[in-house]
């Protein structure tokens, strides 16, 4: 009976460990084989919390001169929609948000990913003219774990550029490089700052 119990414990523990390894392998495979998109990124601060050094990122884009917000469907009970991302210049932008994946894919363009979108467009009041439309996107990638030196160097580079997307090429913007898998989930591959790409490497 004791040997049988020990065997059961070892089997469950082994299966759990294999499950963890399989999770990492699957995520690595999905990240490498997904469709790559670039999304404008807001400046972030390096943090040192219990989870270790990490940099918080926010996917934030601006449409010039108060362009209208992209059409967005009613979100699901968790506030998400199926987002269509389309390439516009040097980045991918939110083109529309749909309630179902099928509707999003029926558009036939861009990359479809599940996430949340918040769009703030200035009203037509004269005082607000000239202000940009701000689109914040939450694809579940909120942080980029880097050692403190690397994170602070990235932050300084963003501070030089202000971390704001610019249109005329005077200063390079900052981008998050995201891999969108067949399951519609976004996985962070790396960041691009001042034209320099920093990739996440598993090994």
């Amino acid at each position: 009976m004791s040997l049988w119990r020990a065997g059961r414990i070892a089997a469950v523990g082994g299966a759990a460990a294999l499950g963890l390894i399989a999770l990492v392998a699957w995520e690595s495979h999905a990240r490498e084989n997904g469709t790559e998109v670039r999304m404008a990124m807001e400046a972030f601060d390096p943090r040192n919390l219990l989870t270790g050094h990490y940099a918080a990122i926010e996917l934030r884009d601006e449409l010039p001169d108060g362009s209208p917000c992209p059409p967005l469907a009613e979100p699901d009970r968790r506030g998400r929609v199926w987002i269509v991302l389309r390439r516009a210049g040097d980045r991918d932008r939110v083109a529309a948000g749909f309630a179902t994946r099928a509707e999003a894919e029926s558009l036939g363009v861009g990359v479809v990913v599940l996430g949340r979108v918040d769009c703030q467009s200035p009203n037509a009041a004269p005082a607000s003219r000239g202000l940009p439309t701000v689109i914040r996107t939450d694809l579940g990638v909120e942080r980029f774990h880097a050692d403190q030196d690397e994170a602070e160097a990235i932050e300084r580079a963003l501070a030089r550029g202000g971390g704001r997307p610019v249109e005329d090429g005077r200063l390079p913007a900052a981008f998050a490089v995201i891999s969108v898998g067949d399951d519609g989930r976004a996985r962070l591959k790396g960041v691009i700052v001042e034209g320099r790409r920093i990739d996440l490497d598993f090994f």
Partner: protein
Amino acid sequence: MASYRARLERDLDRWISDGLVPAGSRAAILSEAHEPKRLDAAAALGLVGAMLLGAATIAFVAANWDGMARWLRFALVLLAFLAAVGGAAEAARRDRAHAANALLALAALIFAAALGLTGQIFDIAGDPQRLLWSAGLVAGALAAAGRSSAAAVVALALIAGGDIAREDWGPGGGLLPAPLLVLTAPLGVIAGWRWRSTPLAHVAALAWVMGLLHLVLDGGAVEISARSWLAFTFATVLAAAARARFGSGGTPPRLFYGWAVLGALLFLGVAGAQEAADAATFLHRTLWLAASLGAVVLGRADRHGFSTTVGVVSLLAAVLAILLDLGLGLMAAAGLFTAFAVLALALGWVLRGRSRP
């Protein structure tokens, strides 16, 4: 504090001088008295040394964590988990039940930390609810494999954390339409009963009440009041079933009876949480007072302190609710309380009369 053997020697000398125990039995009695194993200085130092070594290892790893390659960090995390599992398996093989129990709980906690750390190491975006539930289910599997009550308690705590860690507290905001605790806590109750583990039985029963309360209060198509009445009925049936097994079931039925009474009175209170001063509210308050009194009476009759206490607290809550309902209508409140006071006193007088020879 004198050891047992020293006290026994003093008592034996007194009993021998009083003529209660023959002097010739002294040596034989003392030879049967076993002192409990004590931790000597060498063993204590060894334990302290092992703990300090563990602390040093953790500090070293933490200091160098950022500088390690991702695969090395992941390997360390896996190694810690497998070491705990291996230790538990070895302890089980040697029939060291307490050590196996503790190590399985440790393994469950390490796995939960490993899931979170894996996400941090590889920047894997995850849902906190899914992470906690996954860790809880693995902890439950470890508990079942090793019949470990401690790991089962860890499992219930992780699952409860997952139920709470939902992104949206509106109707149906979680991954599942109902809290997972409602499904898993009964398994904990069964395990506590079969493994004769009092701590696990307490935790599982409390977890079940919490899960049902979460289900009652969560938004949905059915009104809260109706869900509360259903939960009250269910808990009352459970309490009755547990009470029916008082004589034959040993400790577990008495334990589950207490929690079922708490659940029943809690759901009864929630069922009438509306503020309308109508006949339905009056009936509810009357039932609440009666049920609370019944819990107190049965608790005293069964010598079940926990249900007596729950009944008293529920009685106070019912009184407070009535006072809030009636506002300045104190005459009506006085009338109702007088009626129940007369009933309680009369019942007590009758019971006292029956108990006299």
